[in-house]
C-alpha cells in the first residue's frame, strides 16, 4: 500500500466512498442496475471529480468486469472496432458466469480521442453502442464540441459538478488520520479551496505538503502552487518580467495558462516597454528571436524543442534582473490589418497586382514589391512606354491614375 501515490491509495473502491455528486451517482447506478433504456451513458464534468473512479467503484459493487479503452490507444475507426467489438460480443460467454455479470465497456475521455483526421471514430463508437448488449460508459470533460453530437444523441447524459469544499476538507482529514499526520483545519481548507473542487489535485497537494512534515499547519500551505488556476496573462507577464533569474521566469512560464504563441507575441509587444536601455533590449530581443526560431522548428512536430522556446523566453525577460518597473502591459497581441489604406484603394491595388502577376508570372506580393515601385516611376514620367504598359497590362484609368499619383 505504501508504494502507491495517494490519489491511487485513496481512490474509492465502492460507490459509497465516492464523495459528492449524489444525484449523479444515483442516476448512474440506477441506469446500471435497472433496465437500461439507453445502451450507453455519458458522464461529463471537470477533471478530478470522480467520473472514472465511480465507474470502477460501481463495477466493483455490482460485479462487472471493466474493459477500458483509454484515449491514448484509440485513433481511428478501425482501431476502435478492433478493440471494442470483441469486448462487446465476449459478454455472451460470460453471461452465465456466477462470478461476474459480464463486461462493461468504459470509453474514457471521449472528447480527447479524436484528432482532426480521425473523424470515423465517433461513427464507430455510435455503431458499437447501437449493437451492444453490454453497458457502455463514456466520460468526457467537455461535451460542447461538434464532433460529440452524434454521441450525445444516443447516450443518457449525466452531469458531474465540482465537489463542494466541506466535503473535500472532510476527505482530506480522513486521509491525514490514516497517515497519522495531525492537520490544522485551516490548512485543509486552504488546500480544498485552492483545488476549486478538483479532489484529485487537492490530494496531490496534500501529499506534497505532508511528505516532509509530521504535522500540517496553516502556515505551511501559504505558498501553495496555483495549480488549478495557473497564471493569467497579466500574472504571467508581470511574473516573468519581474523574475530575478531565468530559472524563476521559467517557473512562472510552466504555471502559465497562456499558450506559448500568445506568449511569444505578448513578450514581443512588451519587451521595449520593459527595457529602457537599448543595449539590454538588443540582448533580450536576440533571445526572443531564438525562442521564435525554435517555435518555428516545432512546426514539424518536434515537440521536444519546446524546452528551448521556454528557455529563451525566460532569458528574454530577465536580462536586467531587479530593474522591473511596473508598466501597462500591451495585451492582447496587436493584430495588424491593412489599416492605412481605404478599402477602395486596397481593391485597386489588388487589381493592379493581379494584372501584373498574370503577365509577369509572379504572385501579387511580388508584383507589389518588385514591379509596383518601378512602374510608379515610369508612370510619373508620362512616356510612350507608360501608355504601352498600361495597354499591355490592361489597366483602367483609375489604376493608371493611382500609379501616377501615389508615392
Amino acid at each position, binding site marked *: 500500500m505504501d508504494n502507491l501515490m495517494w490519489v491511487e491509495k485513496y481512490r474509492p473502491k465502492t460507490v459509497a466512498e465516492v464523495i459528492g455528486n449524489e444525484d449523479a451517482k444515483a442516476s448512474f447506478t440506477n441506469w446500471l442496475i435497472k433496465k437500461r433504456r439507453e445502451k450507453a451513458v455519458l458522464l461529463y464534468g471537470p477533471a478530478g471529480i470522480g467520473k472514472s473512479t465511480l465507474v470502477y467503484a460501481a463495477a466493483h459493487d455490482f460485479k462487472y468486469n471493466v474493459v477500458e479503452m483509454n484515449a491514448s490507444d484509440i485513433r481511428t475507426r478501425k482501431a476502435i472496432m478492433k478493440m471494442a467489438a470483441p469486448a462487446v460480443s465476449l459478454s455472451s460467454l460470460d453471461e452465465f458466469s456466477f462470478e461476474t455479470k459480464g463486461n462493461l465497456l468504459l470509453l474514457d475521455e471521449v472528447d480527447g480521442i479524436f484528432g482532426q483526421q480521425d473523424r470515423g471514430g465517433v461513427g464507430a463508437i455510435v455503431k458499437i453502442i447501437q449493437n451492444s448488449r453490454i453497458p457502455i460508459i463514456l466520460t468526457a470533460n467537455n461535451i460542447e464540441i461538434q464532433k460529440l453530437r452524434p454521441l450525445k444523441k444516443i447516450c443518457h447524459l449525466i452531469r458531474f459538478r465540482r465537489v463542494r469544499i466541506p466535503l473535500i476538507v472532510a476527505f482530506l482529514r480522513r486521509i491525514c488520520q490514516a497517515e497519522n499526520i495531525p492537520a490544522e483545519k485551516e490548512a485543509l481548507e486552504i488546500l480544498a479551496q485552492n483545488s476549486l473542487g478538483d479532489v484529485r489535485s487537492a490530494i496531490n497537494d496534500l501529499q506534497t505538503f505532508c511528505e516532509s512534515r509530521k504535522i500540517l499547519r496553516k502556515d505551511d500551505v501559504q505558498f501553495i502552487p496555483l495549480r488549478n488556476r495557473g497564471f493569467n496573462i497579466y500574472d504571467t507577464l508581470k511574473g516573468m518580467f519581474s523574475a530575478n533569474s531565468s530559472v524563476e521566469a521559467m517557473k512562472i512560464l510552466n504555471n502559465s495558462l497562456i499558450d506559448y504563441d500568445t506568449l511569444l507575441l505578448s513578450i514581443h509587444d512588451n519587451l521595449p516597454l520593459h527595457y529602457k536601455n537599448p543595449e539590454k533590449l538588443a540582448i533580450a530581443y536576440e533571445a526572443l528571436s531564438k525562442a521564435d526560431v525554435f517555435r518555428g522548428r516545432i512546426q514539424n512536430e518536434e515537440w521536444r524543442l519546446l524546452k528551448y522556446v521556454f528557455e529563451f523566453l525566460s532569458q528574454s525577460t530577465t536580462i536586467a534582473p531587479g530593474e522591473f518597473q511596473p508598466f501597462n502591459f500591451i495585451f492582447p497581441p496587436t493584430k495588424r490589418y491593412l489599416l492605412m489604406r481605404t478599402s477602395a484603394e486596397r481593391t485597386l491595388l489588388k487589381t493592379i497586382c493581379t494584372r501584373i502577376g498574370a503577365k509577369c508570372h509572379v*504572385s501579387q*506580393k511580388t508584383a507589389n514589391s518588385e514591379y509596383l515601385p518601378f512602374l510608379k516611376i515610369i508612370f510619373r514620367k508620362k512616356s510612350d512606354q507608360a501608355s504601352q504598359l498600361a495597354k499591355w497590362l490592361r489597366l483602367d484609368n483609375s489604376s493608371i491614375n493611382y500609379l501616377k499619383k501615389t508615392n
Partner: protein
Amino acid sequence: MNQNDAVMWTEKYRPKTLDEIVNLKDVVESLKAFLRKPATMPHLLFAGRPGTGKTTIALCIAKQLLGVSWRSFALELNASDERGIKMVRERVKTFSRYSRGSLASIPYALVILDECDQMTSSAQTALRRIMETSSHTCRFILICNYSSKIIEPIQSRCAIFRFSTLKQEDVVKHLKYVAEMEHINLHSNAAKTIVEFSEGDLRRAINILQTSAVYEDGKMINEQTILRVVGQASPKQIQLMLNKALSGKLIDARNMLYELMTTYGFSGVDIIRQMHRELFRLQHLSQKEKAELIGVFGEYDFRLSEGANEDIQLSALLAQLTRFSESRGNSANG
C-alpha cells in the same frame, strides 16, 4: 499572348528555351537529360532566390514538353495568391486527375506550383497524396525560395534543383545585351551599380534598367541615374525606420515597420533587403562594422527563412542596430 509584344522587359527578354538561360549550366544539363526521356522524369522542385530563373525554366520545360498549346495542358498556379488546402483539393486535384491518354503527343499534363513555400502545411499534406496517385497523368514542378519550408514527404517525392545566384559578370553581360537590343546608352559603371543593388536578382536588375531608361529618356544612363531610381523606388519609410532604430527609439521604429508591412504590403524578406541596401549607404560605418552588420543581417534573414514570425524577427533585428549607431561609434572612438 505573344512574348514579342511584351512591354515589360522582364517578359520581353525572358528566355523561351533552355539554351537561352544565363548561368545554371548544371541545372540546365540535368534537366535536358530528363527531357530526353520525358516518361521517366520525376516531379521537380526548384529552390533558389528570387529572379534566378526558376519560373522561366519551368515555363521552358512546359513549352518543350507540351508544344505550342502548352497553356491548355499546364496549370500554372501561384501558391502565394492561393495558399490553402482548398486550392489543392479543388484546383490541383481536379486538374491532375484528368487523363490525357488520347493525346499521344503529350506525355502528361504539368502542374507548375510557384512560390510553394507559401503553402500552408495542411495544403502541402493534401498535395502529397495527389502527387503519387496522379503520377501517370501528371507531373509537378514545385518552385520555392526556401526548400526548408517544404514538408519532407514532398521533398522526397521530387528531384531537387538548387538555383544559385547569378554571377555578377553574367548579370552585367545580360544587362548590356538588353541595352543593346533596346538601343539605350548604358554606362559600364551604371551596369555595375545595378548589379550591386539587385543582389543577383535578374528580375530586379532588368526592372531597374527599364525604369532608368524611361527616366533618362534617351540620354546616357550613368551611376547617378541608378542611385536616383533605386532611391525613389525604395520607400522613405525604410530610412526613417532605420534612423529611429539607430538612435535607440525602438518603439517608433517598430511602429514604422508595422506600417511598412500593412501600408506597403511588404513581406519580411522584402524589408530586410531594403534595409540592407539602405544601411550600406550610411557614411559613418567602418569597414569592420559593415562586415559585422552583414553577419547580423545574414543571421536574421536566415531565421526568417526558417519559418519564424516576421514581426518578432524584424523587431529583433531593429533592436540589434543600436549597436551600430553613430553616437555609439563616436563614444567608442573617443
